[in-house]
C-alpha cells in the first residue's frame, strides 16, 4: 500500500473507532425522530380522558348544536354558578363552565369560560371554533337571502398558484419555488456544517501531531504534503461515512416510527402531523393565536397531494442537483480543509486556535448568510457574485442550483473553485511543512506569508 494510503487508513480508522463518533452517528437520527415523534405520542395519550364542560346558554341557541368530541363533552348546567363552581373546584366532576349570554351574532363578547386551572388552549380553540361557526351561520341566515351561504362560500375561493417553468426545448414543467428553496437550503447547510466541523477536525489533527511531537518522526518517512493530504482525505471519508450512515439510519428510524405511529394515531392525528410539519415549515410555533392557526390549517390543506409533490421533485432535476452538490461539497471541503491544515500547523497550543482561525470563520459565516439571502433572490447580484467567489461559492451556489443556473455560470464558478483549491493547497503545503517543525514561537500572519517564500 502506498504511504498516503496508509495515512488515510490511519486517519480514518482512528476516528471511526472513537466512541464519540459512534455515539453521535447513531444517536443523532434517533434524536431527530424523537424530536418529532415524542410530542405527537404525548398528545395522543392526553386525549384519552373525557372532560365535561357544563354549559349555561341563556337563550338556548347553542347548547343543542354544540358537538362533542373525544376530549370534551358538553352537558347542560342545571345548577347555578355557585354549585357549578363547587363541582369544578372540589369534586372535579366538571372541568369547565361555559356561559353564553344572548345571541352571539349580535353581541360577540358575551361568552365566558370558567375554570379553576388556567383554561386549556385546545379547549378554548375547540369551543370558539364551534361558536364562531354557529354565529356565522346565524348571521347569514338573519339576512334572509336564499342561498347566501353558498354565495359566500363561492366568493372565498381556495387560491393556489402553480409555478411552471418553460424549458429550453419548449416543454413545460410544474415547479415549486418553496421546494427549490428548501432543497437548496438543506444542501447549503450540510456543506456549511461539513466545512466547519470537519475543517476543524483537520486542524485539531494537525495540532495534535505537532503537540505530541510525532510529526518529525513521520515527515522523516513521508513527504509533509502526503501527510497533510492523507489527513484531509481520511477525514473527508469519515464525514462521508457519517452522512451516509445518517441518511440510512434516518430513513430507517423514520420508516419504523411512522409505521408505529400509524397504528396508534387515527387519521385526525396524521392530519395534525401534517399541520405540524406545515407549521415548522412556515416557522410559526404552536401556541400562536387562532387566526394564524387557521391560516396554517388552510395552508396545510393547500399542500398538493403526494403525487404532485413527487412530480415536482422529479421536475427539479434531482440528478443535476446531486451531481453539483457532490462536486461543490468536496471542492469546498478540500479548499477549507487545506487552509485549516495550514493554519493549524502554525499553532502549538490548542487555545490559540480559535482566534487564529478567525480569518477562516469569517468567510464561511458570511457565505452562510449570503446563501440565506440569496434564497429569496437567487439571481440577484449578491447571489451571483457570492456564487462566483471561490471562498463563498460552495455554500452560496447550492442555494441557486435548484432554481436553475446557466451552465456557463456553473462552469466558471466551479472552475474558479478548483483553480483556487489547487493554488491554496500548494500554499498550504508550504506553510504546513514549515509550520509543523516550528515550536515555541508566536506566529503572525506576516510570518506565514514569509514561509511561503522558503525553498521546499
Amino acid at each position, binding site marked *: 500500500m502506498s504511504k498516503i494510503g496508509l495515512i488515510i487508513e490511519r486517519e480514518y480508522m482512528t476516528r471511526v473507532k472513537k466512541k464519540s463518533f459512534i455515539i453521535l452517528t447513531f444517536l443523532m437520527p434517533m434524536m431527530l425522530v424523537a424530536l418529532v415523534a415524542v410530542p405527537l405520542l404525548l398528545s395522543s395519550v392526553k386525549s384519552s380522558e373525557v372532560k365535561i364542560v357544563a354549559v349555561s346558554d341563556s337563550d338556548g341557541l347553542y347548547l343543542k348544536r354544540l358537538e362533542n368530541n373525544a376530549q370534551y363533552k358538553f352537558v347542560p348546567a342545571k345548577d347555578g354558578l355557585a354549585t357549578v363552581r363547587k363541582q369544578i373546584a372540589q369534586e372535579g366532576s366538571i372541568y369547565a363552565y361555559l356561559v353564553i349570554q344572548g345571541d352571539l351574532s349580535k353581541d360577540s363578547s358575551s361568552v365566558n369560560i370558567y375554570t379553576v386551572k388556567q383554561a386549556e388552549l385546545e379547549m378554548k380553540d375547540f369551543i370558539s371554533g364551534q361558536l364562531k361557526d354557529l354565529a356565522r351561520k346565524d348571521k347569514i341566515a338573519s339576512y334572509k337571502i336564499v342561498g347566501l351561504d353558498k354565495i359566500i362560500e363561492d366568493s372565498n375561493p381556495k387560491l393556489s398558484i402553480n409555478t411552471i417553468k418553460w424549458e429550453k426545448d419548449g416543454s413545460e414543467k410544474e415547479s415549486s419555488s418553496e421546494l427549490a428553496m428548501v432543497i437548496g437550503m438543506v444542501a447549503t447547510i450540510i456543506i456549511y456544517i461539513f466545512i466547519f466541523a470537519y475543517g476543524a477536525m483537520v486542524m485539531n489533527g494537525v495540532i495534535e501531531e505537532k503537540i505530541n511531537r510525532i510529526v518529525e518522526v*513521520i515527515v*522523516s518517512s513521508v513527504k509533509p504534503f502526503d501527510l497533510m493530504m492523507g489527513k484531509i482525505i481520511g477525514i473527508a471519508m469519515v464525514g462521508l461515512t457519517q452522512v451516509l450512515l445518517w441518511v440510512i439510519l434516518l430513513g430507517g428510524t423514520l420508516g419504523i416510527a411512522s409505521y408505529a405511529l400509524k397504528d396508534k394515531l387515527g387519521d385526525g392525528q396524521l392530519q395534525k402531523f401534517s399541520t405540524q410539519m406545515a407549521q415548522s415549515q412556515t416557522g410559526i410555533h404552536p401556541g400562536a393565536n387562532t387566526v394564524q392557526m387557521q391560516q396554517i390549517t388552510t395552508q396545510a390543506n393547500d399542500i398538493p397531494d403526494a403525487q404532485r409533490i413527487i412530480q415536482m421533485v422529479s421536475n427539479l432535476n434531482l440528478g443535476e442537483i446531486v451531481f453539483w452538490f457532490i462536486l461543490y461539497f468536496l471542492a469546498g471541503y478540500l479548499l477549507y480543509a487545506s487552509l485549516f491544515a495550514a493554519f493549524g500547523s502554525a499553532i502549538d497550543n490548542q487555545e490559540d486556535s480559535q482566534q487564529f482561525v478567525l480569518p477562516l470563520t469569517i468567510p464561511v459565516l458570511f457565505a452562510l448568510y449570503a446563501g440565506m439571502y440569496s434564497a429569496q433572490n437567487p439571481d440577484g447580484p449578491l447571489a451571483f457574485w457570492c456564487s462566483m467567489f471561490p471562498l463563498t461559492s460552495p455554500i452560496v451556489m447550492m442555494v441557486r442550483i435548484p432554481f436553475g443556473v446557466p451552465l456557463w455560470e456553473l462552469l466558471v464558478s466551479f472552475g474558479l473553485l478548483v483553480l483556487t483549491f489547487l493554488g491554496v493547497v500548494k500554499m498550504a503545503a508550504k506553510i504546513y511543512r514549515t509550520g509543523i517543525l516550528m515550536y515555541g514561537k508566536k506566529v503572525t500572519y506576516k510570518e506565514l506569508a514569509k514561509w511561503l517564500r522558503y525553498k521546499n
Partner: protein
Amino acid sequence: MYPLEAKNIFKSFAGHQALTDVSIQVPGQQVYGLLGPNGAGKTTLIRIINNITAPDSGQVLWEGRPMQPSDIAYIGYLPEERGLYKKMKVGEQALYLARLKGLSKQDAQQRLKYWFDKFDVTSWSNRKLEELSKGMAQKIQFIITVVHEPKLLIFDEPFSGFDPLNVQLLKDEILYLKNQGATVIFSTHNMSSVEEICDEISLINKSEVVLQGKVNEIRTRFAKGIYVLKTDAPAGRIPESKLYETLSTEEKKGKLTMQIQKKADVTTRELLVELSALYEIHGFEEEISSMNDIFIQTVQP
C-alpha cells in the same frame, strides 16, 4: 566512497544563517558525532539529510550519488523533538510507523515482535501510549527508529530525558547496530559519551564547521604537552629544568606525582632522557584533553 556525504551545504531562514558551507563525510560502520552548541545548525543539517528541508545550495550524496527521496527508507531517525500518538495503542502505532518506512505488514509484525521481546515491552503493545512511563515510551521510540534495519541511523540528542539505565541500554544498542554494519550519526551535547562511542566528529559552531576529524587525532592535536610523572619521592628539593615547568606536585607515602608542562620546542624524547637521569620513573603519561575541554575551547570566542 562514503555512505553519506554532505557537500558545501548552505541554508538560511529569513535572514538567519543556519548553515554556511558545511561539508561532512560519514564513513561506513562508524559512529559519527555531530557536535555543537544549541542553535549551531546541527538539527538543520540533520533535517536536510532526512529530506525534511532542502538546502539553499549544496548537495547530499548517498553512497556516492545524489540522494533520492526514496533513500530515506534506509534512514532511521530519532529526532530531538520526539513523541508518539498518545491515544493510539503502542503496537498499532509501531506497526503504522514501520509500514510508513516501507516495510510490508508481515515483515513489520515479525521485526516488531523481535524488538518488543528484546526490550521486554511485549505486554504493553495493547496499551495506549499515554498509559506508559516515560522510559517505556522512549524504548518504543527507539524500536520504531531501528525496526526497518536502516543503513544509516541518526540520533539527535538521544540521551536527553533517559535515565542512566536506559542510556546504557541505548549505548549498547547503538554499538551493537554499528557492529551489525550500520552507520550512525550522533548529535549530542554529552561530551563524555562522544569519547566513549564516536569514531569521528564534526563540531559546528554558528553555522560553520570549526573542527572535524577522528576523535583520537583531535584529542592528540589538542594535547597541550602536559605529562604526569610518577616516581619515588626525592630526598631533597625537586630540581628546576629548562625543558619543562612543574605545574603541581603531590607526595604521598613516599611516592611523588608530578604534573609537568613541556616547553614548546622540546620533544618528548629529550624530556624523557632528562627525567630518567633524575628519577626512578614508575609512570609517565601524556594528559589528553577531554572532548569537553576541546568543545569549550573551540566554541568560546
